[in-house]
């Protein structure tokens, strides 16, 4: 610990950061704009001036930019110094000269860093008497709204978009007092991370376009800590609602997972919660071919409970998009033997393989932070930008570790961003992208290899063999691939903290085995190795811990045992398996019960639908791709019609079996699960329990400035209505309580006295991260459990190996119910090799038919040379391509051709 004297008082601090960061962490307010905790310092805005003194006898001092000055032991500074104060007030005066002062009509108003800083510097009087420069705004697509006149030219937007996220279509134009931040011309921002501009920009230039459509001031939002449901990474979010409508998603800082950022699917996919296809009351059919009609809640429970008295078994199908609690409750209801997971046989084998690999690997299980710090990265088989977007952002940061090391050698401080980028132009860490399809990371990769999954897997085996001679070697490798594998192995072995990244996206268990094999072999020569794999859904990992089998097994069981009913929990079976299997599962049993929040194709087949709460209306736990238990809390108070899946099941259980466990609250289920399922031992530690209090208070979901508390319902009663109770969490549906909790899992909004914007996050630092992942590697873990390299890819005469092509906007189920995301999805695409396309007389944009014996789907052609001859890539998750389990050998022909 070192000592820093601020205005003559000593403070203890950890060296290594700049003065600004240090002072903010100590609770001081220093106005700043261009510095950002993830983007570091460039010293562009000159707002963070403080006085620095040589020693205790120096009473003159010099003005320095605190963000550009390292905090060192025994340093003496003054924040309150008159000159420094005047300097800061003057600077903000300049910055505000052209600002339109339009806070009342600005979406940022009330949570604006510029407002906070202006008030903080005391620049309260408008002195500019001249004409202001004005700009034309651009249409930047469905996510981000643009209002350039509010810009103060801090450069944060381009530093995030271009430097941090690798975007190439947002720039700064012009010079002098007329700089413009935007695109070359109006058009959709191409980066998957564009939505972060909303939080990164300290003013109202970039705001959330979807939020505008149902706008609410921050102080009127009722918010809760949440977890993203749109991929397996489980980024931490804050969900804000008002009057039961989910208004927006913001980032919730998590040191190990998403840091300060989210992807656009996670930020803008939320609108399915308000969607028109929501089920908000129980629905039932009088007969199989009748319509679904509303049903009374208790009648619905009774009807399900009766299914259990028939003597015939009930099959339960859980899913990776339902919470761990709901899946566990279902498992308890039907019994572990009759609990299945909504995954096809192949999908299930891959998910299981990944969870197995992650739990058994001798290497460490990498968090996103570990990946971002990796000295070398091997991406094997996974198009992370489209399946686990934040992982791609982390990989992109990893490419800079060499530049950081280089800068360190030159004596440059680790936060001195401009200097590091300047000296690191030609220094790049090793990144290998070996995937079946083209990826957006190719531009920063040092080695790129696109080939069908089996060849990717073979490369993996070859790397593992190069690292560890005892690992199985693939046969018949070409000398080039062999040399490539040796080079990659050498880079990984020599790197500090090398990471192996893979996942379920390629649809190949062999790729996953290969990646696990590389990690194991790498660990033998480099103990800092880590492994990161993405799964298909937000709770795929958790669901796997409960040990259900796949849908084919479910159908077998239903047939064999002459099942009375099947209960499907938050899944659309048609999206996850062969339509014949889904269809049989939904027609064979006498009764079909679906618990879901949306009327999916599966729910439409049900005899009874129990409306589930979404992540915004329920609390629960997801286990992310690294096995981290993360709790999400309801932002919307319980409503009459629908309830969390586990609550429906608890009610059914209480009718079915008097000996069934009594689950009154979420904690009851959590505790029960912890005692019954050994693999779920981490669940209780995911977040403080409902009895947790800070001081004696719960955490407030609303701001203490929430307005209209008594007026809102004055049309029905002038008496103040009681706040909805929340027995499931330590949060209250009330403005009363702790506003800025210390526990990361309970942060419902970022706020500090005087700091109303999201930048208040800088005041929360120093929290212990909610790290829960423990190493579990057993002594035998390094064994490559008998995996063998597949044979090399060989084309077939009249069929093509069709590989999965993932789209960040379009392949995921729930975000596609969000109009903004759906507007960016294209129709299903098939990408062909130019020679194959010529052979089939298919040209770019032609209508194409892809089929197997049972299915045929229509798609649009694209032609690209990265596709290996004899293979093709087809959009997954689109309605057109549903039911295919890619990679698959399929027929391809031009639509209308014989």
């Amino acid at each position, binding site marked *: 610990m070192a000592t820093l004297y601020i205005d003559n008082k000593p403070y203890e601090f950890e060296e290594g950061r700049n003065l600004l960061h240090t002072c903010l962490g100590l609770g001081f307010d220093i106005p700043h704009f261009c510095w950002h905790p993830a983007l570091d310092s460039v010293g562009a805005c000159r707002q963070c001036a403080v006085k620095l003194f040589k020693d205790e006898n120096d009473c003159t001092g010099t003005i320095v930019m605190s963000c550009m000055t390292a905090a060192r032991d025994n340093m003496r500074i003054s924040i309150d110094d008159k000159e420094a104060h005047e300097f800061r007030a003057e600077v903000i005066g300049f910055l505000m000269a052209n600002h339109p002062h339009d806070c009342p009509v600005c979406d940022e108003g009330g949570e604006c860093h510029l407002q906070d800083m202006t008030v903080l510097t005391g620049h309260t009087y408008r002195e500019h008497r001249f004409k202001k420069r004005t700009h034309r705004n651009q249409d930047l697509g469905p996510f981000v709204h643009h209002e350039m006149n509010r810009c103060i030219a801090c450069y944060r937007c381009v530093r995030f978009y271009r430097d941090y996220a690798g975007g*190439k*279509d947002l*720039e*700064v*134009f012009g*010079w002098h007092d007329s700089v413009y931040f935007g695109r*070359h*011309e109006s058009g959709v921002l191409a980066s998957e991370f564009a939505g972060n501009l909303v939080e990164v920009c300290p003013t109202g230039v970039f705001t959330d376009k979807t939020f505008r459509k149902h706008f609410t001031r921050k102080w009127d939002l009722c918010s809760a800590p949440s977890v993203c449901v749109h991929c397996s990474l489980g980024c931490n979010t804050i969900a804000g609602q008002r009057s039961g409508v989910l208004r927006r998603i913001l980032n919730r800082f998590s040191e190990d997972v998403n840091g300060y950022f989210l992807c656009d699917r996670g930020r803008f996919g939320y609108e399915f919660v308000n969607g028109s296809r929501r089920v908000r009351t129980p629905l039932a059919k009088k007969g199989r071919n009748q319509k679904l009609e509303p049903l009374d809640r208790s009648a619905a429970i009774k009807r399900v409970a009766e299914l259990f008295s028939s003597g015939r078994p009930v099959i339960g199908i859980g899913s990776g998009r339902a919470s761990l609690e709901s899946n566990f409750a279902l498992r308890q209801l039907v019994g572990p033997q009759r609990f299945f997971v909504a995954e096809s046989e192949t999908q299930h084998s891959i998910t299981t393989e990944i969870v197995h690999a992650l739990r058994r690997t001798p290497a460490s299980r990498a968090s996103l932070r570990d990946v971002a710090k990796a000295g070398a990265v091997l991406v094997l088989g996974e198009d992370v930008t489209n399946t686990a977007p934040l992982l791609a952002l982390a990989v992109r940061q990893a490419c800079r570790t060499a530049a950081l090391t280089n800068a360190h050698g030159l004596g440059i401080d680790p936060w001195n961003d401009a200097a590091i980028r300047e000296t690191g*132009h*030609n220094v790049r860490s090793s990144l290998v992208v070996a995937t079946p399809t083209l990826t957006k990371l190719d531009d920063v990769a040092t080695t790129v290899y696109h080939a069908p999954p089996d060849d990717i897997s073979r490369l993996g085996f070859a790397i593992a063999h190069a690292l560890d001679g005892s690992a199985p070697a693939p046969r018949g490798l070409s000398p080039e691939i062999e040399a490539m594998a040796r080079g990659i192995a050498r880079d990984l072995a020599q790197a500090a903290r090398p990471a192996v990244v893979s996942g379920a996206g390629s649809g190949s268990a062999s790729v996953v085995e290969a990646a696990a094999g590389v990690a194991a072999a790498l660990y033998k020569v480099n103990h800092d190795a880590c492994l990161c794999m993405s799964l298909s859904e937000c709770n795929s990992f958790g669901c796997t811990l409960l040990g259900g089998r796949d849908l084919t097994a479910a159908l077998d069981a239903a047939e064999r045992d002459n099942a009375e009913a099947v209960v499907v929990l938050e899944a659309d079976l048609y999206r996850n398996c062969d339509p014949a299997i889904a269809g049989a599962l939904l027609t064979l049993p006498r009764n079909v019960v679906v618990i879901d929040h949306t009327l999916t194709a599966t729910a439409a087949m049900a005899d009874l639908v129990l409306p589930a709460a979404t992540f915004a209306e329920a609390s629960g736990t997801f286990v992310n791709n690294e096995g981290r238990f993360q709790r999400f809390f309801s932002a919307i108070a319980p409503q009459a019609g629908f309830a969390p899946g586990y609550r429906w099941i608890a009610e059914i259980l209480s009718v079915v079996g008097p000996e069934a466990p009594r689950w009154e609250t979420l904690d009851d289920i959590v505790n029960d699960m912890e005692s019954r399922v050994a693999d779920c031992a981490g669940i209780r530690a995911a977040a403080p329990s409902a009895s947790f209090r800070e001081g004696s208070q719960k955490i407030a979901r609303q701001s203490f400035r929430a307005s209209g508390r008594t007026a809102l319902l004055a049309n029905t009663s002038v008496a103040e209505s009681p706040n909805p109770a929340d027995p499931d969490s330590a949060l209250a549906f009330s403005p009363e309580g702790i506003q800025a909790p210390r526990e990361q899992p309970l942060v419902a909004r970022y706020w500090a006295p005087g700091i109303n914007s999201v930048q208040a996050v800088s005041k929360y630092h120093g929290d212990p991260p909610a790290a829960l992942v423990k190493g579990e590697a057993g002594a035998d873990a390094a064994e490559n459990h008998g995996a063998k390299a597949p044979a090399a890819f060989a084309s077939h005469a009249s069929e093509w190996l069709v590989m999965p092509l993932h789209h960040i906007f379009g392949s995921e189920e729930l975000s596609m119910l969000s109009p903004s995301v759906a507007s960016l999805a294209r129709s299903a695409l098939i990408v062909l090799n130019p020679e194959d396309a010529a052979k089939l007389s298919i040209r770019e944009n032609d209508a194409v038919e892809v089929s197997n014996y049972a299915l045929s789907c229509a798609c649009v052609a694209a032609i690209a040379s990265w596709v290996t001859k004899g293979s093709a890539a087809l959009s997954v998750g689109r309605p057109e391509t549903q039911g295919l389990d890619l990679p698959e050998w399929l027929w391809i022909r031009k639509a209308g051709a014989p």
Partner: protein
Amino acid sequence: MLTQEERAAISEGCDSSPSARAAAPHALGAVQASRGWISDESLSDIAEFLHMTPAELDSIATFYNRIYRSPVGRHVILLCDSVSCWIMDYEYLLNHLLTKLGISGFGETTKDGMFTLLPSACLGACDHAPAMMVDRELFGDLTRQSIDTIIDQYRIKDGDRRTAQSPLATGRKEQ
């Protein structure tokens, strides 16, 4: 479409630069030398040639005030408005120049598309202030008379070409 000569000129600059980004100012200059200014189309063509996005290149183009992103006349007059010239009353000359050219301020082009008038920071000719530059030619110790002579001489020199229209004479309306 870039011409053969333009491509050659750009490639030459690329050879002596560590990256495309570093070669960009030279490339823009080379194309501007042959076309007078950088249109959106030229910008896209150069960007493609340098493997950059138009946004990346435009960011560089608009940073330099002497890369023209809108059309200019055949000759660009840079009148110094910096401190020495200000002391020597360049403003008085500015008014004269405006009348002479028939335009109303900096940034405008004469109707015949012959001259564009732009301000410039110190031309490094303070000892001969007030000063101005026409294309690459420097003129010091300016007076109303000397300005008249300079402009007239350019007009005479360009006399033969006066009938040939610059892209601008038809392209832009003058106030």
